[in-house]
């Protein structure tokens, strides 16, 4: 089933990806990530001494600060902060630096759809750049359900508004992980099949959702490969201490 997209892409085609790391001097780690015209800048500071109220003697704390392109931070931004924070928490090895806080600042440069996935990808690259120990990487993608029932990947803002439903999905990217085998297996299925984060908007049938999941998963492989290419090969070696 083919569908015409405004920018001439096929349903499964992503917009051009771009990622550059270490672009800010003073941050401990930074990265910019763009998907077409959507661009997000992320900076990581830390781990620093945890003086915040949510410090925890057993685990490191991650705080996410979302900076919108313009204007004040409102409810949607607060929600994004929470989603990014919980997603990053699940990929970081929090037990290595207990009682510390790592701040991730997400600056939106331009929003042309798929903003949250783009931000998660940027934050993930920035964490790697800062050398924060990670269990594995994460890739985020937006799947959009057109009225005809077919799934469009990586929609632009216009497409997001026009379609009836969309899902932001985050998948793990495990290939370079050195975690003990099987520790992350979910009922025997390989972990790549599982999702870290899912946020949906709009009504859809359960089958449509599962369909989105499948397509998103397939596309995430491409993005994983890109993410890994844009990071130095020896990169997640810090996480060798994870196990």
């Amino acid at each position, binding site marked *: 089933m083919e569908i015409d997209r405004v920018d001439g892409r096929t349903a499964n085609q992503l917009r051009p990806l771009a990622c550059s790391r270490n672009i800010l001097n003073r941050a401990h780690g930074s990265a910019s990530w763009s998907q077409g015209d959507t661009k997000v800048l992320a900076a990581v500071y830390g781990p620093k001494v945890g003086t915040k109220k949510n410090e925890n003697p057993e685990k490191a704390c991650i705080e996410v600060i979302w900076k919108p392109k313009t204007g004040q931070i409102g409810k949607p931004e607060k929600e994004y902060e929470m989603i990014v924070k919980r997603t990053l928490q699940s990929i970081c090895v929090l037990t290595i630096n207990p009682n510390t806080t790592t701040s991730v600042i997400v600056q939106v440069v331009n929003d042309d759809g798929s903003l949250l996935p783009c931000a998660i990808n940027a934050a993930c690259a920035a964490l790697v750049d800062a050398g924060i120990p990670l269990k594995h990487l994460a890739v985020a993608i937006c799947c959009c359900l057109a009225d005809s029932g077919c799934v469009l990947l990586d929609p632009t803002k216009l497409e997001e508004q026009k379609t009836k439903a969309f899902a932001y999905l985050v998948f793990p990217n495990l290939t370079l992980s050195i975690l003990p085998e099987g520790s992350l297996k*979910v009922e025997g299925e390989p972990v790549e099949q599982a999702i870290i984060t899912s946020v949906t908007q709009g009504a859809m049938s359960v089958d449509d959702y599962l369909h989105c999941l499948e397509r998103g998963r397939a596309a995430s492989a491409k993005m994983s490969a890109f993410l890994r290419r844009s990071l130095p090969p020896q990169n997640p070696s810090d996480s060798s201490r994870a196990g």
Partner: protein
Amino acid sequence: MGLPDASGDLSSEVEVDAFRRLFPLRFCERHLSESIRPDGRPLGRARDTTIALGAVASADGSALAKIGSTTMLAAIKMEVMTPSMESPDEGCLAIDFHMPPICSPIVRPGRPAEASPVVSKQLSDTISSSGMVDLKELSLVSGKAAWMAYLDIYCLDADRALFDAALLSAVAALSHLQFPTVSLNEDGRVVVVVSEEDGGKLEKEPVNREKRKLTLKSIPFSLTCILHKNYILADPTAEEESIMETLVTVVLDSSSQLISLYKPGGPVLANTSVIQDSIALTRQRVRELQKILDEANSGMEVD
């Protein structure tokens, strides 16, 4: 956490309460392995749920929902606004979720809880996604006046499942909503008509004589589950949520459409079968909640 191995040996010696405090995860897992929860529920069962409609007399629609000890009070106040140029036939629904300091030890006055804007956003997203409320029904005089429905939800007691309880109370309040009978006065402002006794002698014809209630299409209901290892625990308590962090919230409407599948991170990854299982649990729960809501509504009609 802690020393998982040492706890096994200690368990026979220390008292249950001490064990529960020292090794909460162990304590919980022991129960789970027997397919039971620390509070005696089976894994898939939600806590007792009640709805009371019309709890606030000063509001146009209100409901008190309780899931376990989590208590939510939702009330709707109708105000009049001039509709926007783009949609002259539509009213507006503004949803806000509050966590006052009374509800939990972690909320202090002047410092709003982190969770409240997030739940608030989730609620308005869910209710708009489900298309439950037709905003056209909130119109009074096309282009001139429309209802602005302020739906405020207060958490009176927070024992997790905040979103589930908040959504339930919001939905119940919407089903209880009765529009005040109003008419236009000379200045074009909308005024309330008090008609009960002198019904015939109204000098102004009410503009909304027929439309007194909202027609709710496809009502959304939700269930939050905890994922832990291979277990799926429906409707977690605060104790369970403090030791197992992965949450999945599924919202389905009465026609089994998926309104939202919300899993914000968490150490446990969800694969397709887990997702399907939690959707199946939610289906069951939707039927339960629908029944509870219907009973509450029919109870109101009897009065």
